[in-house]
């Protein structure tokens, strides 16, 4: 096909989708859910930090601990985001294409002088912009609240780590957005598409880890306290299988970013630790450590988006 200059259809659709999301009830409900759980976990974390500081004097990276500390009852902030984030992405995309079908607006919109892909691109970009705006607002609000609660401002290093955390979270949620747009292209019914999205979410958030354990145990049987090499091999396989899940990738990425003392992901041999100096990783090294995870998330997002793009371009338009 001949390449033509875009008449701005993409920008118009992106703007409309963004406006729809930002003013819609869906976003308000999910924002509320994430904000309430976030504030609760933040408060608990601040309490924990106070008592820890009281016992041990000064501790490093106090500000980051706001996001990762927990009292053992309520999970930390990052766990909530990794659990509820997918829901945000799914909610914004599950009826992206099927909704246009159901409202019978698809053929009317596509009869306007826009390229067909502008619609699906605009839906994705509009959703992405809404997610980014929402998370940035939440991020600033949580940061401000944390500042009030513990009274210690973040250092430059902490700030960079938090910015990276925000960026990775946006990528993580856009993966779920792309997945839900894919489902909305495959399934004509919005309810089916929503259900498929929720099924995928529950599978990855809850069962994927358990299944990875089972599969690894079946592939490389190793008794506890048995052959160390077998145990190591089993652990390797379990880790690689669980890394097929975007939830695992995200959890590894953000806990590494927000916990500078994490120096390696996966099993570490005693001989590797022997003689190692105690200390924390500089930000550059932490970023290097999570780079594969981030690339994995981006790849998943791109794959889902590409699949829905191709499906949509081949789809018959008739209502």
């Amino acid at each position, binding site marked *: *096909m*001949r390449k*033509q200059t875009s*008449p*701005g*259809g993409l920008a*118009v*659709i992106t703007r*409309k989708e963004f406006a*729809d999301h930002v003013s819609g009830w869906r976003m308000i409900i999910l924002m509320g859910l994430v904000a309430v759980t976030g504030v609760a976990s933040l408060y608990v974390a601040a309490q924990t930090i106070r008592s820890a500081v009281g016992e041990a004097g000064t501790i490093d990276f106090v500000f980051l601990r706001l996001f990762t500390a927990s009292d053992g009852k309520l999970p930390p902030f990052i766990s909530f985001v990794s659990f509820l984030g997918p829901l945000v992405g799914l909610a914004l995309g599950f009826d992206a294409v099927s909704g246009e079908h159901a*409202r*019978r*607006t698809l*053929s*009317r*919109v*596509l*009869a*306007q*002088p*826009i*390229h067909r892909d502008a619609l699906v691109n605009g839906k994705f970009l509009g959703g992405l912009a809404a997610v980014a705006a929402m998370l940035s607002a939440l991020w600033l609000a949580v940061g401000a609240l944390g500042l009030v609660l513990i009274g210690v401002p973040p250092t430059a290093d902490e700030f960079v780590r938090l910015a990276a955390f925000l960026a990775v979270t946006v990528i993580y949620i856009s993966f779920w957005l792309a997945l839900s747009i894919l489902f909305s292209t495959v399934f004509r019914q919005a309810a089916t598409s929503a259900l498929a999205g929720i099924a995928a979410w529950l599978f990855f958030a809850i069962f994927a880890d358990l299944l990875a354990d089972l599969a690894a145990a079946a592939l490389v049987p190793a008794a506890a306290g048995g052959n160390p090499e077998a145990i190591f091999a089993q652990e390797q396989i379990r880790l690689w299988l669980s890394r097929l899940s975007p939830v695992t990738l995200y959890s590894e990425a953000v806990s590494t970013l927000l916990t500078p003392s994490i120096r390696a992901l996966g099993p570490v041999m005693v001989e590797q630790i022997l003689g190692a100096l105690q200390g924390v990783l500089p930000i550059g090294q932490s970023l290097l450590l999570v780079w594969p995870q981030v690339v994995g998330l981006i790849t998943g997002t791109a794959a889902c988006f590409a699949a829905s793009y191709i499906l949509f371009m081949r789809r*018959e*338009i*008739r*209502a």
Partner: protein
Amino acid sequence: MGSATPVIETSGLVRRYGDLTAVDHLDLTVCQGEIFGLLGPNGAGKTTTILMLLGLTEPTEGRVRIAGLDPSRQPLEVKRITGYLPDNVGFYDEMTGRDNLRYTAALNGIPRPEAERRIAKALQRVGLPETADRKAGTYSHGMRQRLGLADVLVKEPRIIVLDEPTVGLDPEGARDFLELTRELAREGITVLLSSHLLHQVQEICDRVGIFVSGRMVACGRVHDLAEQILADEQFRLLIEIQAPLPGLATELGRLDGVASVEDADGEEGGGRRLRLACSRDVRAEVGLRVQELGGILLHLEQSGRSLDEIYARYFRGKEMDNVA
């Protein structure tokens, strides 16, 4: 009809879905300012044809030109000059009617002040100016249909394609809608109208094409089609006189071209209503003869050359083909 510039042209247009041939070698020419009716039952390939004309579906083979442009190669140019009102059009329910039109205008790249002017004009024209600021979700079917036409008019198209525009409208709404369509054609806009409602098509279309299972089996003016297809078909004439007139039935039976005369209500010897079967148009002679015999003619109706008959004829023919 305006000047005879062809605006829509197709030749050998085919669209197959697997084994099913939805459109089979369609050759169609529609000229500027013409109202062309695509007529046929559901599933005859009308909507597929429309989608191919707009470049929303790729033809399997054949050639399409819309104002000289190829919709598969230059879809944007074609869509810029073509307004399409789909069958049972939908709007974004949570937006007002006016906002829906603004969105369309923005997609067409019309600058804001110009868009506002065009939207006001289009809403005025379809008769929705007061309700335009209500949410589209509250609109009735008729209002949606009118908003759909306004949506088409906002881009000031050269060609308008209407897919079953009057289905589900009340008779008055349908009449208003068709009147508006006719007005647009008078302004030089080419209108392609798809429908299975014969009377409406007959009323406003300059020419019609009859679709049966993907093929256009006939195309032309309604009158010409009647001449062509129903040449061997008898005219049927129904007359009503004020009071029974003895001997009238026999008299009329003697007229040249009248094959038979019978009473419409089954009365022996002829009552007030008579039914004639004729091989040619004998209305004038019948009227004259009734008067000569001192009767008063109240009603005279000729049937057998309407689109209904033509249509029924095709489907009867088709069913017979299927049996054979």
